[in-house]
């Protein structure tokens, strides 16, 4: 055999690394959001500070373990864009993370999950549609609220 077992093992290792490199790289460049109590209503606060109208608010509690309640907002900007933002607070990092896993576990077909999910302290913030100018504006401010 021309190929030594060492080289053969090297190719297997190469294959494994090709999968792990993207995963590890992305995890390193992404920021983990710590679980901490963010007071008030972060979405309403940010929207109002940016001049985005909150056209409706409803209380909502998701049927998930550890969910302690949240709001569903309909936000409208001056250009007429409309998004629906649901927030839900969780009583622990474990229950919040379980909700994130559940979201990622529900893609449509072989694609991505619907909408966008953000994490703000103890809140999970779900926005639909995934792409909108309103989310583009409020996302950086919501991220700031996550930082200790």
């Amino acid at each position: 055999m021309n190929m030594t077992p060492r080289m053969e093992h090297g190719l297997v290792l190469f294959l494994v690394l090709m999968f792990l490199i993207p995963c590890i790289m992305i995890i390193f460049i992404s920021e983990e959001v710590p679980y901490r109590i963010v007071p008030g209503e972060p979405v309403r606060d940010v929207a109002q500070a940016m001049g985005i109208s909150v056209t409706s608010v409803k209380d909502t509690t998701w049927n998930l373990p550890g969910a302690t309640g949240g709001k569903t907002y309909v936000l409208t900007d001056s250009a007429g864009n409309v998004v629906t933002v649901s927030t839900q607070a969780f009583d622990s990092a474990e229950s919040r993370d379980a909700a994130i896993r559940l979201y990622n576990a529900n893609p449509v077909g072989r694609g991505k999950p619907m909408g966008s999910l953000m994490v703000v302290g103890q809140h999970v913030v779900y926005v639909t549609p995934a792409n909108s100018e309103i989310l583009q504006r409020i996302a950086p401010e919501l991220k700031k609220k996550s930082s200790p």
Partner: protein
Amino acid sequence: MSPEATGTTSGLPSKKVLGLFALAMINVAAVLSIRNFPSMAIYGWSCIGWYIIGAILFLIPISLAGAELATGWPEGGGVYAWVKQAFGEKGGFTALFCEWSNNLVWFPTVLSFIASTLAFALTPSLSASPWYMFSVMMIAFWGTTAIAYFGEEASTKFGNIGVILGSIIPAILIILFGIWWIGSGQSLVLPPLTLGAMVPAINMSTLPFFATIILLFAGMEMAGFHALETRDPQKDFPRAMALSAAIIVVCTVLATLAIAVVIPADKLNLASGVMQAIQYFFNAAHVPGLVAPMAVLITLGGVVSLAAWLIGPAKGLGIVAEEGNMPPMFDRTNKYGAPVAVLVIQALIGSLISLLYVFLPSVNQAYWILSAMTVELLCIVYILVFASVIKLRYSQPDKPRPFTIPGGKAGVWIVGGLGLFGTTLAFVVGLMPPSFFASNGLAYVFSVLLGTFLLAVPPLVFLKCKKASWEKPAEPGRDLS
């Protein structure tokens, strides 16, 4: 030798155990997913329009192209064999590898779905425990790998029973409850059906959903990986494609509408998963006792879907290794003909990615990028398949094809062209960063493209390192050309 007899093909003992029904069930297992129904139901009547777009730009083209390619080149390897005929080994290996590698990123999502759905039947709070999640995910993953180890016959029996119990019966139950709901005069949450209500809103906000809808029916080519075990591929493939497409469309559209007319859109909170929607649905129908059994069935459906995607591309990779395009280590098969080396490597990599998925969930945005990579990789597979069906009409016009896309060359251009248009557009749209990445859009696009490249490039490295000693002498009865 009768078609039922055991055949030997270059080291892979293959029993001709698959008929029309089993082939169709492989596709149904790969494509039909209860998970999609609540997500699509939120669109109300316009889900019909979205489904029509998915059918015209993907489902119909891939079914017709798959039927022509599978009957013309009924060798093992599925997309590998088809694309290799058109674009050579590099193209074929790349197509297959993209299909295999996108799976490895997708596995944690379906495994997590299985674990959280099972938790719903046991104690929903279990899903908050990473250790419960990881344990069940590993049992499901390695258990399915073990079924694949016992070869095609065991996988087929498991798949046939599982897809009926875990996918088709739950879908039929949902449809029947929907019919009962309407028939018993309960209030419908959707407005009256009009033509306009079925038209989906397509704009910059909904464009990313386009990629999703195109890949909603991904997996219709899965039966092609099992050509070597098919009794009469040239007769059964086209019929299996038609049967599976019909089952998938009927179940998907009717079950989605059943949910849409019963559950208000604001209750279909997409962050809450399919079981929460099912629970609301059965509570509304006054049969809450069915929720737990339904969770068990849907869990089984998830396992069967996992099995279909786990086994098919792995078999294809086994064929690639058998043809000498990968080191002999990948070419190890057992007495059942299962490509054990590929299965074990796949399970190890999938387990590692699952570990990251479970224990680092709050880096949610990172997983979004990985999901985007899977979309891009799948698009590459289908772009190559559609390009192949067109090219082969010119490069091998005289090759007997028991099934051909109707309409001659114009027909193949229309069908292949629609598929190419849909998947290319999905590839481009798949690069659009979601709004929460907007401040770092270029980094997002770069990350997705780099990751896609890294996951697609290994075949070129393997072919570059290829040695003559990797090749096995061809045995009678197997065309390796």
